[in-house]
């Protein structure tokens, strides 16, 4: 499952985002740290409104008003040449040049991202023409053919209008368009949410195959945790605008370290093994305008103790510390003596 190197391609550091400009602003992201390595599939999971999409859009500076980035940096490091810069300080020209060339996005509800009055071939070549103006029309058209074949759509569909394609096909056209310039990062914002599971499976498999062939890194945003466990190399779980756990997919599935992750994993039934009672997570996410003083998950957490009400946990090493040095969790349980930590958060897996 490790197709990726350890070279970071996108480093998000201490990123904070507000919605609104005054004191009533919603703090949608609060000091998020996340690193995407070259060729890696990074899953972002969490409930609706926890900031998954906000994170992806803020990192690409695509957040619409009243979104406001209030701090942090997003460093892009090219794996192909020696470009390295902070997207948050980049000027418009640089940002426009890097978009699609380095970072492509498949939008939430991508089916509606196609312009209904142009043929899909035209829309594919347009994306290329915008960034490679010197390329000839024939080359662009050949590339568009190639792209459609890549995602499993017959090339004669180039002359179809979006309404003549099914939802799954439109989604694949969007993926083809995202890959048009061979970006190093592809951000997928719930790309399969509107599709049935069969089409979803086809698209995901195709995507994973393309990833192996072309070697781009993927940020995959979804609330379908089971899907993520299957396809992601690494998963970051978000809650109330923060990352609360960051681990490889297998580790996260076998041995969650945060009570919220534990709850998420018990919210869908396993297909194999003994039948389990579905736990779910009681309560609902906090109001981002008026967050609790301590850990934002404390009111819903069954393991909460005094410190959770007053202090705010940061993303740090787990109780197992050096044994799993790549894992990070934001929970005070992991600061306590090993004996007092609930067993379910301390599962060792090998």
């Amino acid at each position, binding site marked *: 499952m490790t197709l990726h190197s350890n070279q970071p391609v996108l480093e998000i550091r201490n990123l904070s985002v507000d919605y609104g400009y005054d*004191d009533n602003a919603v703090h949608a992201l609060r000091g998020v740290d996340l690193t995407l390595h070259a060729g890696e599939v990074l899953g972002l999971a969490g409930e609706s409104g926890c900031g998954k999409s906000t994170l992806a859009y803020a990192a690409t500076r695509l957040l619409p008003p009243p979104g406001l980035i209030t701090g942090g940096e997003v460093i892009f490091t090219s794996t192909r040449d020696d470009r390295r810069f902070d997207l948050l300080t980049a000027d418009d020209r640089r940002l426009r040049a890097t978009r699609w060339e380095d970072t492509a996005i498949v939008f939430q509800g991508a089916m509606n991202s196609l312009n209904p009055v142009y043929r899909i071939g035209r829309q594919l070549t347009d994306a290329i023409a915008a960034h490679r103006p010197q390329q000839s029309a024939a080359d662009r058209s050949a590339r568009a053919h190639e792209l459609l074949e890549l995602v499993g759509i017959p090339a004669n569909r180039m002359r179809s209008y979006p309404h003549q394609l099914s939802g799954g096909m439109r989604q694949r056209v969007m993926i083809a368009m995202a890959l048009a310039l061979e970006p190093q990062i592809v951000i997928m914002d719930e790309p399969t949410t509107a599709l049935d599971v069969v089409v979803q499976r086809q698209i995901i498999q195709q995507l994973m195959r393309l990833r192996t062939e072309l070697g781009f890194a993927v940020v995959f945003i979804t609330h379908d945790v089971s899907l993520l466990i299957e396809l992601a190399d690494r998963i970051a779980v978000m809650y109330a605008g923060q990352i609360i756990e960051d681990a490889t997919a297998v580790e996260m599935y076998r041995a969650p370290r945060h009570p919220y992750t534990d709850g998420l994993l018990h919210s869908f039934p396993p297909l194999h093994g003994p039948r389990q009672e579905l736990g779910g997570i009681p309560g609902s996410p906090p109001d981002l305008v008026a967050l609790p003083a301590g850990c934002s998950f404390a009111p819903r957490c069954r393991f909460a103790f005094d410190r959770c009400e007053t202090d705010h946990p940061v993303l740090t090493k787990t109780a197992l510390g050096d044994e799993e040095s790549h894992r990070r969790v934001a929970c005070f349980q992991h600061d306590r003596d090993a004996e007092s930590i609930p067993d379910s958060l301390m599962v060792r897996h090998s």
Partner: protein
Amino acid sequence: MVTAVEPPAVTPGATTARRSRRGSTNLLFLRNRKTVVGLILLTFFMVLALIGDVIAPYDPSATSPIGLQPPSTDHLLGTTSLGQDILSQILVGTRGVLVVAFLAGALATVLSVLVGITAGYLGGTSDEVLSLVSNIFLVIPALPLIIIVTGLLPSAGGLTIALIIALTGWAWGSRVLRAQTLSLRNRDFVEAARANGESTWRIIIFEILPNLTAVIASGFIGTVIFAMLSEITLAFIGVTSISDWNWGTILFWAQSNQALAMGAWWWFVPAGLCIAGVGTALTLINFGIDEFVNPRLRSTGQNAKVLRAKKIRARVGFTPVLRDTTADRKPPRGAPPSRRTPLPKEQP
């Protein structure tokens, strides 16, 4: 995109925050400085229209031996060549202008809403017929028609003129509303209303109409300005009765007595300024209406001030980044102090 979800138990602090926010929403219309200026100006002219003939110091038609006097304490805006008081003429004339303008604006708006929305929503033959009618009215030149009609009816008063202006001026608004309704009627929320079993008229009035408020309001204001200018033009070229005082009549007399050539600026400048004043007031109000009726734009005016103060340029596609000021900002409610300190660097 991200909406704050109501927490299971709302803390007292959060409740007050909510309340203050809601309270400010009611007054948002008045937060926009342009709108406030526009409203004050319009109210001023409205008051003049109401009490103009009462507070007018002289009979506007009464002549006196002192002709063509510049503004003085006796005659604040001077006199005409016949010695009539110009201030009194302006005061008495305000009512005629505003009544005709608003009456014509209201009538034209009602007509355009009825025809436009019906045509757009019903479609088919009704649309064909109604569109044909509005297309015909669209190409009728309003001013010549009014000149002919008023020529035929020498006794035509303000009401007749308002009616004619409304009848010739509604078609433009109706085209705009029809187009907008066509795009609205296929939206999912209208489909949902049909699935609810709502009647056609309920859908039109409660689902579609509120989405058109901004268009209707700006159409209304545009028509009012158009009606005011038409009426003044008619009076200025002497088509309507020159004994009924309005600002156009003043300009008519000023023109026919060559006030400009004689340097009698006090004769035509006040009336001109009044016309410009009402036009400005209505345009300024129009700026606020869009914000007020569109809930999604409601915070715009409020935000504009904050944005200016923080020197943020909000743009689509390039999210602004707030720098340097982060340190002076007080930590927001509920945010832990640890958030401000940089997180320890770790290598995963």
